[in-house]
């Protein structure tokens, strides 16, 4: 039969490769800055956009969506064409995808620094950008499925299955978790509240790890590792089996982010069990990758690309053992809210994602520029520097995590807590310093790669369209089935995807009004909606990303109840759109901040925001002077009350009319109190609203009102 001549598009791969490198460096630089802020709070520069609460989401979004995102597209666009023996379905869609994605990243950088955030981790981008992400993802999907359908190789290699699973699941996750009601152009409230929001968020969050950081990169590993080693995959059967097992099990692991919280026990147990089961398919991938190098270990010694892949796959194996173990409740009781979680994340992020990206770039650039790598020695040095960087990053974080957890839980002989929270922070500062050194090494390595790539490109000549030839698919292939089957077989992917998406959307549109809007019966009768001033204050809390350092979830442990007060109940959070339980305690938990021995005066809070070190010597929290200077914008109050009522918070009808009046009354009460403590507030400063919110935390369920104490 006639072979057809066609060309692979390398230009789109080149574009994604450049974007990967640029945003990799940017993301790592932001990471380094926030790492430094842990021991040098002055590195906030007294500037709102560079406070930790705003920079942290910039770092996570940059490294996940800009760095790994572009890397995934680079790998998929290269490998998919060659595995299907077809050029991408549409060059136009390729470029819309590329520029659309970069535009999303640019808008993310601007909006996150300005404080436009939903307050939900890895889903911080506000609703207009969420819509853009959906549109670009659909463009990507059409391009990808279109290419698959016009393939010249009937067999779908395992990498393609990973890409398909990625596309379908990320679409589902993004849409479900992004269901939010817009209030203004860049502010929305999560449709879900409290416990429900937490569950949906971490169903999403963990599957962002699974289907954005893992499955596409596993697909990439299955193509590029054999290619680089010139060895077939160790066991093709294993790759198929572990793929199906992986994608079935991963979805259920989300609740392991919520162990010992107010999430119902049965949901927690589900998350734990499925997380443990997940070890097996994950290790299937690691072993398959490593065993592929059987008999080719001499090549690993020569080739930097393979060195990076080997460490990457090994770190993948380590992370996918550690993760399930961290999902065991007794271990999680120690690790949750500590730097242990951060250590775990960064082994996966720097080891698996980062090193796969580096190996990929070192492999692709010489290939596409038809030359050899400028300096293998430099690449090898990058490899060692990066590996050592990962170790110097992770070990201090493990140390800090264990140490802090133990200190939190230590009681004296008399039965009181031995350490103040702040003592546990200052104790681990040396670990934070060391960690940032590890990060510097890793970043320097990446910069060495950029230099190496620039020199390689300079000495090569780019192949924009790579010639290839292959025979077209034999259309009349008959597997002995009847005619009506074949119509369905010709369009199975498209049919399945489209119909299931439609069904899911339809189902959601029916379910949401039915189950959620009516869900306004509080489980605890004393729990009431926030006042307008407290609501504004809460939105400032979300805007500044306070949840990135402070949790609001007291776990049912003796030491937590002793330190913070009554442990948190699910019914307390029914009006929290979004939930703000937090994932990390760089600072103390705030769930009971307004009651009991933790309650402080309004002026304490004012001075603490002015300079945390005034009230807590040695604190690493940044100063929030701008909160004292900015006037609260009350023009949004009515719209916020109205939006909250729509999503189920029982504000009385017409409450919008008097909301601002009540806001003024409450705010002036606080200002008068501050004035008596010699603090002048020229107008209703933003800090007044934030103080009102903090003083509300824990108040509803406290049975006996306690006298406010002067300081902790």
């Amino acid at each position: 039969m006639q072979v057809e001549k066609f060309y692979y598009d390398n230009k789109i791969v080149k574009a994604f490769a450049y974007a990967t490198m640029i945003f990799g460096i940017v993301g790592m630089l932001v990471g380094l800055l926030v790492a430094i802020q842990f021991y040098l709070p002055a590195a906030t520069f007294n500037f709102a956009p560079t406070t930790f609460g705003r920079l942290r989401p910039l770092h996570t979004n940059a490294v996940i969506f800009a760095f790994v995102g572009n890397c995934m597209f680079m790998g998929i666009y290269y490998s998919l064409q060659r595995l299907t023996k077809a050029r991408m379905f549409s060059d136009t869609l390729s470029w819309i995808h590329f520029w659309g994605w970069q535009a999303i990243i640019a808008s993310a950088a601007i909006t996150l620094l300005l404080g436009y955030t939903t307050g939900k981790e890895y889903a911080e981008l506000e609703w207009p950008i969420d819509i853009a992400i959906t549109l670009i993802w659909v463009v990507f999907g059409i391009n990808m499925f279109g290419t698959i359908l016009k393939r010249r190789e009937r067999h779908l290699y395992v990498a393609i299955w990973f890409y398909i699973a990625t596309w379908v699941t990320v679409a589902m996750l993004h849409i479900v978790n992004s269901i939010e009601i817009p209030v203004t152009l860049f502010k929305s409230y999560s449709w879900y509240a409290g416990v429900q929001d937490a569950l949906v968020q971490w169903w999403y969050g963990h599957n962002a790890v699974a289907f954005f950081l893992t499955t596409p990169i596993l697909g990439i590993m299955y193509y590029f590792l054999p290619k680089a080693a010139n060895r077939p995959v160790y066991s093709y059967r294993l790759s198929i089996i572990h793929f199906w097992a992986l994608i079935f099990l991963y979805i259920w692991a989300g609740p392991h982010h919520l162990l010992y919280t107010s999430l119902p026990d049965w949901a927690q147990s589900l998350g734990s069990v499925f997380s443990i089961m997940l070890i097996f398919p994950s290790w299937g991938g690691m072993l398959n990758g490593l065993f592929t190098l059987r008999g080719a270990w001499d090549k690993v010694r020569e080739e930097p690309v393979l060195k990076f892949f080997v460490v990457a796959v090994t770190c993948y194996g380590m992370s996918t053992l550690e993760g399930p173990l961290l999902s065991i409740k007794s271990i999680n009781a120690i690790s949750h809210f500590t730097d242990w979680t951060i250590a775990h994340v960064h082994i996966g992020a720097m080891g698996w994602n980062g090193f796969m990206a580096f190996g990929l770039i070192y492999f692709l650039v010489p290939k596409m520029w038809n030359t050899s790598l400028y300096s293998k020695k430099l690449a090898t040095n990058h490899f060692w520097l990066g590996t050592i960087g990962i170790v110097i990053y992770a070990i201090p974080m493990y140390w800090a995590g264990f140490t802090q957890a133990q200190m939190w839980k230590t009681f004296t002989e008399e039965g009181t807590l031995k350490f103040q929270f702040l003592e546990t922070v200052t104790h681990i500062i040396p670990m934070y310093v060391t960690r940032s050194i590890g990060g510097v090494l890793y970043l320097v390595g990446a910069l060495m790669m950029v230099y190496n790539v620039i020199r390689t490109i300079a000495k090569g000549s780019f192949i924009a369209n790579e010639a290839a030839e292959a025979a077209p698919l034999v259309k009349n292939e008959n597997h002995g089935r009847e005619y009506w089957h074949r119509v369905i077989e010709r369009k199975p992917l498209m049919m399945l995807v489209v119909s299931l998406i439609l069904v899911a959307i339809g189902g959601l549109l029916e379910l949401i009004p039915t189950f959620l809007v009516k869900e306004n019966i509080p489980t605890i009768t004393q729990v009431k909606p926030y006042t307008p001033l407290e609501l504004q204050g809460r939105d400032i809390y979300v805007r500044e990303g306070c949840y990135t350092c402070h949790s609001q979830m007291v776990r049912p442990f003796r030491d937590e109840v002793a330190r913070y007060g009554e442990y948190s109940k699910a019914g307390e959070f029914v009006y929290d759109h979004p939930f703000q339980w937090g994932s990390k305690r760089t600072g103390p938990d705030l769930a009971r901040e307004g009651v009991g021995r933790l309650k402080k005066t309004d002026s304490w809070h004012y001075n603490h925001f002015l300079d945390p070190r005034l009230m807590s010597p040695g604190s690493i929290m940044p100063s929030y002077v701008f909160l004292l200077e900015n006037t609260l914008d009350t023009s949004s109050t009515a719209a916020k009350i109205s939006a909250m009522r729509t999503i189920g918070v029982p504000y009385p009808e017409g409450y919008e009319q008097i909301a601002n009046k009540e806001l003024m009354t409450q705010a002036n009460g606080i200002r008068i109190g501050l004035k008596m403590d010699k603090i002048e507030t020229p107008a209703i400063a933003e800090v007044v609203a934030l103080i009102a919110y903090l003083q509300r935390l824990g108040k509803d369920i406290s049975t006996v009102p306690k006298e406010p104490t002067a300081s902790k």
Partner: protein
Amino acid sequence: MSAIIILLFASISVAALFLAAFLWSVKSGQYDDEMSPPIRMLFDHKPAETKEETNI
């Protein structure tokens, strides 16, 4: 906790989609040959300079 209904619906839909895809792939013979795909992907399909056949 009624958000669980949405999550269950979404997850089971996706799982059903994947199950259907799996059944399709087995039925359409995707896994009949497990030997050639891992070897075949190692080859680049550069157009032949001469008239000789390209491998596989």
